[in-house]
C-alpha cells in the first residue's frame, strides 16, 4: 500500500512539475474552443447545440495527447526495471500510474472543460451535469489511455499508434457521454452506463497494461 501511494503521489508531483500535465491540457482545450467558433461561424444557436459534443471531443483529444508518455519515461530511464522487482504486483503499479494520470490530466480537465464551454455558448444549466458525466468519462479515458501507453511504452514515436489503438475504445464513452446531455429521459441511465464503463476500465486496465509492459521486458 505504501508503494502504491508512493507511485501515485510521485507521478502526480511529476505531472505538475514537469509540465505537460493539467496546465498544458487545459491550455489545449482552451485553444480548441477559441478556434471552433472561428471555424464554424458565429451562429450562436448552432454553437449551443454542438457545445457538449465539442467538449467531449476536446476532452478525448487532450487525454489522448498525454497517453503515450504515461509509461514511456519510466521505461526509458529504468524506473520500470526497478518497479518490477518490488513486492507490489506490476498490475497495481499500472493502476497507480493510471490513477495519477486521471488526477493530473483527466480530473482537472473534466472540471475545467464544462466551464470553458461558455466560450462556445454552452447552455449554463447543463454545466453541472456535464461536469459529473465528464469526471466519470475522464476516469474511463485515463484508464484506456494507460492501456495504449503501456502497449507503446517502448516505441519512440508512439503517439499516433496510441491514437489508432485506443480511439476505437473511446467510442462507448463518447456515445454515452454525449447522450447524457442530449435528452431529458435518458439522462440517469446514460450516467449509470458511464459509471459502468469507468469501473470496467479500472478493472481491466491493470491486467492489460501489466501484460503489455511484461512483453517489453526482454
Amino acid at each position, binding site marked *: 500500500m505504501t*508503494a502504491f501511494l508512493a507511485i501515485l503521489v510521485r507521478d502526480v508531483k511529476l505531472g505538475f512539475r514537469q509540465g505537460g500535465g493539467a496546465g498544458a491540457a487545459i491550455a489545449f482545450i482552451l485553444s480548441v474552443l477559441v478556434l471552433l467558433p472561428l471555424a464554424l461561424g458565429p451562429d450562436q444557436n448552432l454553437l449551443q447545440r454542438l457545445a457538449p459534443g465539442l467538449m467531449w471531443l476536446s476532452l478525448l483529444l487532450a487525454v489522448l495527447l498525454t497517453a503515450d508518455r504515461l509509461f514511456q519515461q519510466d521505461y526509458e*530511464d529504468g524506473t520500470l526495471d526497478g518497479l518490477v522487482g518490488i513486492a507490489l504486483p506490476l498490475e497495481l503499479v499500472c493502476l497507480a500510474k493510471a490513477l495519477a494520470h486521471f488526477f493530473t490530466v483527466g480530473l482537472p480537465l473534466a472540471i475545467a472543460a464544462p466551464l470553458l464551454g461558455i466560450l462556445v455558448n454552452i447552455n449554463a444549466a447543463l454545466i453541472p451535469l456535464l461536469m459529473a458525466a465528464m469526471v466519470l468519462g475522464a476516469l474511463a479515458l485515463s484508464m484506456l489511455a494507460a492501456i495504449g501507453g503501456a502497449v507503446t511504452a517502448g516505441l519512440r514515436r508512439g503517439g499516433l499508434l496510441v491514437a489508432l489503438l485506443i480511439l476505437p475504445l473511446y467510442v462507448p464513452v463518447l456515445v454515452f457521454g454525449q447522450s447524457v446531455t442530449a435528452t431529458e429521459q435518458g439522462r440517469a441511465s446514460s450516467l449509470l452506463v458511464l459509471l459502468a464503463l469507468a469501473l470496467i476500465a479500472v478493472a481491466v486496465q491493470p491486467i492489460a497494461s501489466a501484460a503489455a509492459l511484461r512483453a517489453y*521486458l526482454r
Partner: protein
Amino acid sequence: MACERNGRVVFSDISFRLEAGQSAELRGVNGAGKSSLLRVVAGLVPLAGGTLTLNGESEFATQCHYAGHLDGLKPAMTVLENLQFWEDCFDGGDVDAALAAFALRDLRDVAVQILSAGQRRRLALSRLLLSHRTLWLLDEPMTALDAASQEKLYGHMKTHLAQGGMILVATHGDLGFVPHQVIAL
C-alpha cells in the same frame, strides 16, 4: 542457463553456483552477454533454457537488487525525494544512512537534473542500502565513480558479503577485492 534476446542466442551453457557471502565477477568482451545474464537473474528477461533458483525458489525477483546502466532517477525531483520514493517502494530502509553511505547528505535537496554523472551513479547505488536484498546484481557499478567513491562502494560490497549477502558483478575494470569466482562469458 541459456538466454535469447530478439531471437538471437546471447549465451548458452552457462552454469554457476553462489554460496551465501560469496561474490562472482562476470567477465567477457562487449556484447558477450554480461548485462543479459544480470537481467535474466533479476527476472527482467525470461530464461530461454535451464533453471535458476535462489535458496531453492525459482521466483526471487523481490530478493535481488538490479543496478543497471539506467538509473531510474527522476531529474525533476531532488536527491531526497528520489530516495524516499524508493524507500516507500521497497517498504523500509533508512534513507539517512543510505545518503551518508555515499556522501550524499550535502546534496539531499539538490534536483537530480543538475547532478554530475558520478553523483547520479552514487545516488543510484545508494538504493542498494535501502532495499536490503540478498543478491546484488551490479552492472558496471564503477562507471563514472571517482577513486574515493569506488572505495566506498567496495566497502559496502564487502560489508554486504560479510552479512551473508551475494553479489554478481559485471565489470571491465579492477574490482577492489578478489571475487570468489569469475564467470567467463
